[in-house]
């Protein structure tokens, strides 16, 4: 006897405990198997690119905080690099080192969030997420010492950073660097060997190298599918060419690899920070020739950096005024979402949540 069944279309989100932000998936199901899937977004659209057209170059720094709100430092860095390229502004050496240190700290914070929420989606409610948040809290405290804010930092300015670091920051950073490797070990021994996690994530949502390259994915998503591409190595910005670090790559490109890449990248980030602390020298942190209201020359500039989620790029077009004529943001989460259908179609609905969690999207960035 065969059961007659018809396709059912359901809405995942925008208000769903497993959704990262206000995001909707229109899923067509045949029983428990996913037939078709269509992401619907725009619930958090604030028109950042349009708002940028009527603000001065320094004021836009505050807008970039709100794009990827778990990695504000990386957004700041990408934006100010684009302005510096547009206006040919030189950055003092010390500022470059501090920028790299805070960007790597932010990468650790962002990866902790990604790992915690992946586990949360898997059903490990609370515990691993709180361990990740506990470590992230230390990084946010470091940022509070630096710039008085924890999430919306507005730390960087075209031509450097806004103010030199207090001594308290370096002391706390050393304590953090001492404790963090142990905490990553603890997190890994909680998750990596866990049989439930393994059975839920191994061989789920496999992406081949050809697929990820065709869809122009970037960041941990790309590297998990054993494509060795990292903008810090391929096109070194700031002072990454002076620093020795590895680019970890995954083996199969499944969800477990995407988790493991993030853990490995956190260790590499700690290595980078340690080297930066040894190399940094006293000096100015801000180019004094840069005024508060910058009048950029006519032209255009694109700068992409390796953000925690992938290549984060700002494309600025200037018509010679005090604000950009056009500001285009290449948001990694948005582009990483494009392969969600390929990852999940044909699989079960339980795997949809796991795959979706492993992409690590932030809706502030997807909708902009």
């Amino acid at each position, binding site marked *: 006897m065969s059961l007659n069944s018809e396709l059912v279309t359901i809405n995942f989100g925008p208000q769903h405990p497993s959704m990262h932000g206000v995001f909707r998936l229109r899923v067509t199901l045949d029983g428990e198997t996913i037939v078709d899937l269509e992401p619907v977004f725009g619930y958090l659209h604030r028109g950042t690119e349009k708002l940028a057209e009527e*603000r*001065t170059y*320094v*004021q836009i*720094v*505050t*807008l970039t*905080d709100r794009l990827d709100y778990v990695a504000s430092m990386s957004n700041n860095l990408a934006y100010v690099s684009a302005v510096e390229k547009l206006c040919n502004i030189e950055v003092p050496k010390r500022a470059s080192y501090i920028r790299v240190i805070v960007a790597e700290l932010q990468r650790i914070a962002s990866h902790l969030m990604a790992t915690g929420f992946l586990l949360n989606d898997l059903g490990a409610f609370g*515990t691993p997420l709180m*361990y990740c948040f*506990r470590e992230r809290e230390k990084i946010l*405290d470091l940022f*509070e*010492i*630096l*710039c*008085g*804010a924890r999430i*919306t930092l*507005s730390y960087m300015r075209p031509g450097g950073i*806004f*103010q*030199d670091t*207090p001594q*308290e920051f370096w002391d706390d950073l050393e304590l953090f660097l001492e404790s963090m490797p142990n905490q990553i070990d*603890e997190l890994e*021994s*909680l*998750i*990596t*060997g*866990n*049989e*439930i996690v*393994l059975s839920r994530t191994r061989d789920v949502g496999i992406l081949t190298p050809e697929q990820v390259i065709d869809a122009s994915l970037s960041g941990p998503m790309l590297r998990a599918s054993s494509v060795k591409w990292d903008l810090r190595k391929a096109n070194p910005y700031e002072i990454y060419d002076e620093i020795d670090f590895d680019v970890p790559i995954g083996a199969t490109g499944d969800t477990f690899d995407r988790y493991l890449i993030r853990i490995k990248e956190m260790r590499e980030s700690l290595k980078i920070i340690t080297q930066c602390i040894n190399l940094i020298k006293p000096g100015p942190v801000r180019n*004094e*020739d*840069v*005024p*508060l*209201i*910058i*009048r950029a020359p006519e032209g255009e500039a694109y700068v992409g950096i390796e953000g925690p989620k992938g290549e984060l790029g700002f494309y600025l077009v200037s018509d010679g005024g005090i604000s950009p004529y056009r500001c285009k943001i290449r948001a990694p989460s948005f582009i990483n979402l494009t392969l969600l259908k390929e990852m999940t179609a044909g699989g079960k609905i339980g795997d949809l949540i796991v795959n979706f969690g492993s992409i690590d999207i932030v809706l502030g960035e997807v909708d902009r």
Partner: protein
Amino acid sequence: MYGLGLIKGLGITLKNILFLQRRNTTQYPDRKASIIDLAKLDNKNFISYAFTNPMKTLKSMMGMIVISDKVDQHPRFRGEEFSWYEERCTGCASCAKFCPLGIIKIVTDQTGKNYAEGQNYDIETFDIDIGRCMFCGLCVEACPYDALHMGSGFEEGQYKRNDLVIDVERLKKAEKKPSTWFRPQLEQKDDYSPFDEEIAWDKVGRHQKPSKKDLKNKWIRK
């Protein structure tokens, strides 16, 4: 062995529950007071405090007395309740021009006391709508005379939106506890902490009056 990973994970959770949980939890805004805390508030030895106030001692042992607790903040904390120094302000409205949201409103009176000397205008209106403020601190960065500073408080909840607009009277009356955000001269003062002491207008600035060169560097591209 299958299941070993699970047992290992449970061990870590147990370790955290037993040893690390309390250390990582910050009690805010209240925490349970012990006898020692209460005695400290009364400036007494806790043994003599226990004899003189047996009821309070009993209550605190049962965890029924709470005292308010402060969270750790850093001197650069960008808080509400801006510190504004009337004596330093010239009414140039640089802060209003540089605010990304345009929430600062300044109206100056040209017939003010020092207008004849060309020093500063009388400020009639200085409204900051902190209901819309995002505390980016760019107004503080733009101020050429170090008149406006970020504050250090954060517990300014109100029931009405209009109460969130800080006007000039409130700015004058507010506690002058400026944060060291974008004020390196305050960080160089050794023992200054924005959470303990107020600071007078003549000690807060980099200079009495910026030179023309300083202002040019700040505002005009060469």
